[in-house]
């Protein structure tokens, strides 16, 4: 019973680390990932701790790295993730790293600033190009009409001589570019402010332009506004400014415009080459950075984690060494020692680091060493509650009972096979699938439970074969034990009509007398009384399984009582509990077997076999009626035996309820009497040196000599006042819970039967209602229909039966384990061991 049976033995250790070696040692421990450091200065603010500056420098480095990463992502350069795991760099390397990042960041910023300036320039030129092109159109196409319209629109005095139109450009105009979505508001505002005295003409720029700051693509429009007079001009300009429109100078004559356009075109050409060069430079810098960025991230995060951990430590009075407290599994202590020595060597410190085990009354954290197979099962248990330290862990039993109880409810070989294959696929392709990240929460859940799914599939095939059920059909492997005989009522009176509901009766001669070797006889699939038959079978099975599992749970509690040396619980809890369970439901299970074995259709009159349920009720009512024959007794002397059992069960109640509290009270009273001389010898926690190594021992002792008792936390003495009332209430609650629980939990196990029935019925309905339609078709069109129907049937099978039913069976199994099984022995009030581990930190960071 390896490490899963109980959690790892933990020990509170004290570390004395030379201040120059502390960093390297913590780094080694982080790679090992087997110690949990305790915060020794919980009252100190985050920013008042010793290494806060280093943490801050790391945060700054991370910021720079994030900036670089963002730029790299923007340029869509693939980052190299070789999966290598560099050691945390030495503190002095931090300065180099900082310098590198600083240089890169500045370079990037410079390049970006240049690029932005160039882009802005480029944008302006492009906009100007568009303006020149569009306004050319305005002027050419509508030279006359614009002027006319404008003059009309502006309400130019009609009485003016026509000659004035010879100088149409007395109208001022501005041209510019504006975001397309702002046009309506812009136009409306212009109209309102200028009271309609302006004329706006706009045209869309077809190709989107790039915003130099954000790099987004934006749609813009060219506009040109005609107006009259300076006052309007200033207003128009203000509005343009307000709407972030950029205005460009636009020459008035076509020739000038053409000239300008040519100038703009050449400048754009020039700019394009410069821009290209800038982009190339940027790309080169980023590609170089992209190669290293993952490694850098890991390094910086490790440094940060180390300094965070160092912040938890206490400083020695002489400030030559740091003092840390940590929980560590006892079996890993050698590894930790080794790591510490490596760290000390690496830092070149002459004084070795020392590890001391401390004794403490504090409850250690719970730590299970799991592997990829057991971790999912352990996770199921932990989801209910972290086990108490060294408590019996239900997880190893759940590895078998969980898939088994699931399969009892999910008993279908076909569905089980699909599930098994899915689980197998995930397990076989584990390595490839592990590298896929961000595949969604649902997938992660399935993938995390791949071994559970595999086992659940496997067990479902087994119970499916026992139920002889695959997609609601049966296999006839060994040949049915039923033959068609004359009185086999398969045909109606005239031998041509098949009676749809055949009632199979073992009394008839159709039954050969020998039993189908494995599982259910396939002939039951045809029979009308199939459900009545399987119900009786599955119901009894559920009770048997349930009572066995509960009994097992109660027995497991003895391991706890014995391990924690709680003899009182053994006699005052375990014994009455097990008696209570056995007297009531253990006896019932025995009767079930008795009935199965003793009665058979042929030899004894099974019509008159006593009913189990009525029998159980009568047992508690002490009534033994003579009629009907099904309420007769199983065996002679049953009345006496049953009366004895009931009396014993009832006697268990006061035993459970009263004995323990009164014994505790007696003990407490005795202690008060004798505690006068005990109190003075309160023990100071001992410091034991487990540093067995001969080389170290001299130095180690030296350090221990100044063991200030005040740095060892003297934890609260757990000598609470004995309160009889509280203990009594506690006991009453426990007794009531257990006794009612025994009854309700047994009933609760009937869900095994109910879900199994539901599953079988659903899959049968799916077959008869859906697939049967396809099978009953004839001719060529039948083949097409059957393909379609198969598709629908397959979808329903996967969706409803596998996913929904599977989930429901899973949840019921979970409940049976959490409530019915674990309540018998499992407290689950511990707290988890959280190791300081780089691996975990990296994983967590990538999740963000």
């Amino acid at each position, binding site marked *: 019973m390896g490490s899963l049976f109980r959690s790892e033995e933990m020990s509170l250790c004290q570390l004395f680390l030379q201040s120059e070696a502390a960093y390297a040692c913590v780094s080694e421990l982080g790679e090992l990932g087997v110690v949990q450091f305790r915060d020794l200065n919980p009252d100190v603010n985050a920013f008042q701790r010793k290494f806060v500056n280093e943490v801050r420098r790391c945060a700054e480095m991370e*910021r720079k790295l*994030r900036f670089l990463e963002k730029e790299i992502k923007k340029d869509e350069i693939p980052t190299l993730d070789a999966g290598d795991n560099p050691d945390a760099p030495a503190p002095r390397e931090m300065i180099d790293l900082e310098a590198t990042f600083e240089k890169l960041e500045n370079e990037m910023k410079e390049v970006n600033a240049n690029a932005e300036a160039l882009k802005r320039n480029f944008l302006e030129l492009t906009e100007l190009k568009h303006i020149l092109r569009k306004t050319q159109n305005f002027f050419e196409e509508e030279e006359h009409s614009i002027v006319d319209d404008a003059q009309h629109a502006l309400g130019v005095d009609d009485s003016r001589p026509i000659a004035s139109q010879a100088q149409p450009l007395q109208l001022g105009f501005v041209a510019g570019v504006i975001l397309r979505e702002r046009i309506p*508001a812009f136009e409306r505002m212009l109209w309102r402010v200028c009271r309609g005295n302006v004329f706006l003409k706009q045209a869309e720029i077809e190709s989107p332009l790039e915003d130099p700051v954000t790099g987004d693509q934006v749609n813009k429009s060219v506009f040109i506004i005609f107006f009259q007079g300076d006052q309007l001009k200033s207003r128009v300009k*203000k*509005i343009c400014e*307000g*709407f972030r429109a950029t205005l460009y100078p636009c020459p008035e004559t076509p020739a000038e415009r053409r000239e300008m356009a040519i100038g703009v075109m050449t400048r754009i050409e020039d700019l394009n080459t410069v821009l290209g060069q800038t982009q190339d430079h940027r790309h080169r810098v980023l590609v170089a950075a992209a190669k290293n960025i993952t490694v850098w991230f890991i390094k910086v995060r490790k440094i940060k984690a180390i300094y965070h951990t160092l912040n938890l430590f206490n400083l020695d009075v002489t400030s030559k060494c740091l003092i840390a407290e940590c929980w560590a599994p006892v079996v890993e202590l050698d590894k930790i020692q080794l790591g510490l020595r490596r760290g000390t060597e690496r830092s070149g410190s002459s004084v070795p680091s020392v590890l001391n085990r401390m004794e403490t009354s504090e409850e250690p954290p719970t730590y299970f060493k799991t592997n990829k197979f057991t971790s999912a099962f352990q996770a199921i248990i932990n989801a209910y509650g972290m086990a108490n330290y060294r408590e019996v862990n239900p997880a190893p039993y759940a590895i078998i009972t969980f898939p088994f109880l699931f399969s009892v409810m999910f008993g279908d070989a076909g569905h089980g096979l699909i599930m098994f294959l899915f689980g197998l696929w995930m397990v076989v392709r584990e390595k490839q699938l592990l590298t896929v990240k961000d595949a969604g929460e649902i997938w992660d859940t399935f993938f995390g439970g791949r071994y559970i799914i595999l086992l659940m599939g496997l067990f479902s095939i087994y119970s499916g074969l026992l139920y002889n059920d695959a997609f609601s059909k049966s296999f006839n492997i060994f040949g049915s034990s039923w033959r068609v005989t004359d009185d086999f009522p398969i045909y109606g009176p005239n031998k041509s009509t098949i009676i749809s509901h055949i009632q199979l009766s073992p009394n008839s001669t159709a039954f050969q007398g020998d039993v189908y070797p494995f599982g259910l006889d396939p002939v039951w699939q045809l029979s009308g009384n199939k459900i009545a038959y399987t119900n009786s079978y599955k119901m009894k099975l559920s009770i048997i399984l349930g009572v066995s599992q509960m009994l097992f749970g109660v027995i497991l509690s003895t391991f706890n009582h014995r391990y924690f040396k709680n003899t009182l619980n053994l006699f005052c809890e375990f014994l009455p509990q097990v008696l209570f369970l056995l007297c009531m439901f253990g006896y019932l299970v025995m009767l079930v077997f008795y009935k199965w074995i003793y009665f058979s259709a042929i030899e004894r009159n099974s019509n008159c076999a006593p009913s189990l349920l009525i029998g159980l009720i009568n047992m508690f009512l002490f009534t033994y009626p003579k009629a009907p024959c099904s309420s007769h007794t199983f065996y002679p002397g049953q009345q006496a035996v049953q009366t004895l059992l009931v009396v014993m069960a009832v006697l268990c109640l006061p035993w459970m309820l009263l004995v323990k509290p009164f014994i505790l009270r007696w003990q407490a009273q005795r202690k008060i009497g004798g505690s006068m001389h005990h109190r003075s010898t309160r023990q100071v926690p001992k410091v034991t040196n487990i540093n067995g190594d001969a080389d170290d021992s001299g130095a180690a002792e030296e350090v221990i000599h100044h063991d200030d008792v005040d740095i060892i936390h003297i934890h609260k003495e757990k000598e609470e006042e004995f309160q009889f009332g509280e203990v009594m209430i506690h006991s009453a609650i426990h007794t009531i819970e257990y006794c009612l629980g025994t009854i309700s939990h047994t009933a609760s196990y009937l869900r095994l039967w109910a879900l199994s029935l539901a599953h079988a019925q659903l899959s049968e309905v799916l077959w008869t209602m859906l697939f049967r339609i396809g099978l009953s078709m004839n001719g060529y069109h039948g083949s097409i229909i059957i393909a379609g129907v198969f598709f629908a049937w397959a979808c329903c099978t996967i969706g409803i039966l596998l996913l929904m039913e599977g989930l429901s069976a899973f949840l019921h199994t979970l409940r049976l384990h959490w409530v019915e099984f674990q309540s018998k022995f499992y407290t689950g009030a511990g707290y988890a061991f959280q190791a300081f581990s780089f691996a975990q930190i990296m994983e967590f960071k990538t999740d963000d």
Partner: protein
Amino acid sequence: MESLTFNIDNGYLEGLVRGFKCGILKRDDYTNLVQCETLEDLKLHLQSTDYSNFLANEPSPLQVSTIDDKLKEKMVIEFQHMRNHAVEPLSTFLDYITYSYMIDNIILLITGTLHQRSISELITKCHPLGSFEQMEAIHVASTPAELYNAVLVDTPLAPYFIDCISEQDLDEMNIEIIRNTLYKAYIEDFYKFCEETGGATADVMCEALSFEADRRAFIITINSFGTELTKDDRAKLYPRCGRLHPDGLAALARADDYEQVRAVSEYYAEYKLLFEGSGTNPGEKTLEDKFFEYEVKLMVNGFMQQFHYGVFYAYVKLKEQECRNIIWIAECVAQQHRTKIDSYIPIF
């Protein structure tokens, strides 16, 4: 009935806002913040709160203004998220909340242009919750009528502005009057809207808005002493939906000095306490702080009821107060002016 159907449309958002509310800094956080030596410390501590990494990408050295911007940005992102998921009538309610910021922005811009500041400089100072499309073109207007016709007519504030059109030109005094007239109309309208919504919303919001109205009335009266504002004009600026309406407002309209205002407050138990606890001496809290404290109390109480829109208003107000607190502490830390660092207003 309301509680039956409320969650159909607003359950998600109410849950969300209550979640946001849990992220508001607690008393412990403030005691830690106050101990900070530098802004870097402040950043480090805020990282351990709900703000987490909101400053992580800011290069050192940190400016108070960056903190302010980031605080606002966070709040605006949260608000916009809720606004985008809201349906009628909650969406209108949320819009109403933004109107007060719009009023502030307009007044800020007009005052700025009056003092010849450039519009782009002013825009950065505007609260992002109250931005609207025509905002930046506000400097084309030189009279209230123009302001109305050109800029505000398309905004939801247009109906509130009707009363101000008659003002002749934009000077400091008139701007103040415009601000208060706008606020008055806004609060009264918001009050009416909440009353029509009914239910718990009306209960919570009417109390909050009455207080807001009364606070404005008090502040207007106190600030008007020694200015050329006539008593009649002053009386026109009082929002008429508070507890002071109508008797208290009439008394306030007649007041000539602080003592008389104080005398008015004597008739109202809750305001009496505020006036009694305030003072200008060192160690005493200003009346303004007292009002803020009372507002915080009201807003926290708003969360005690379920199925109403008041929580959104309360959240915005509390968050605003929290921003003020953090900025106050940050300023004190940055200027090494630690004596007054404790005069923030704790929320929980």
